């Protein structure tokens, strides 16, 4: 499993360096040229593919978190979360069943 998706050199006002950590995974998803306009909804399938996850059938619920806060609005863009920062670190968290 590679840590890097596609390292690129792009303008940092349009792109950022994205790291996504899946809590129990050994490696992180890394995109050195993620578009600031990309939404969390658009990002999710790319991250699922990397971590070999699937939401087919809606069995599992996954969510992104940033700095300990759950990002519930999936239309939020990476740029809106990162603000002026060049790097963005997200966690992908599985919502486990409660008994």
């Amino acid at each position, binding site marked *: 499993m590679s840590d890097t998706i596609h390292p690129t050199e792009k303008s940092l006002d349009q792109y950022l360096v994205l790291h996504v950590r899946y*809590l*129990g*995974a*050994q490696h992180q998803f890394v995109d050195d040229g993620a578009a600031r306009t990309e939404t969390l909804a658009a990002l999710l399938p790319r991250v699922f593919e990397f971590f070999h996850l699937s939401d087919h*059938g809606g*069995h*599992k*619920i996954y969510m992104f*978190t940033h700095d*300990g*806060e*759950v990002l519930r609005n999936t239309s939020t863009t990476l740029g809106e979360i990162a603000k002026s920062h060049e790097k963005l670190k997200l*966690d992908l*968290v599985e919502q*486990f*069943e*409660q*008994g």
Partner: protein
Amino acid sequence: MASPFELSLFEKELVEVEALPEAVRWTLERDDTVPLGLRVLMHPASKPSDHYMARLQWGGLFNPVSLKFLNLSTRADNDPTAWPQCYGFRPGQLDACVSWTKEGHQLHPEWAQSGRSTFRPPERPVQLALLQLQHELDTSYTGRGKA
């Protein structure tokens, strides 16, 4: 009985998790009463003065973890006030009824057959348990358990 591979990975993970950014907020120590066990002192981001000591024990490293909270003074595991109130945690029952814990699956054997609740063995079980616990403290904490 933990396999040599599980014991080796556990030792490796104990070193690796100390390097996580979150680890500056933790105090980790081995639980030598079992081969695969640790204790960790944690606090919720919203209430740094509320300290909780979790005891994490694995029968098999790739199975859901047993989670208990210990009284900070006595280390007793039967004190509801030693528990934080978080998503799925039941201080009065001294368990966390969620599908990432052993206790949750003991209460709900049907979860093993449910797509949503099936426990997917993680690559890094110790990291998952610690980060999931910190996630719950940071995002769903509502206060200390009642006596």
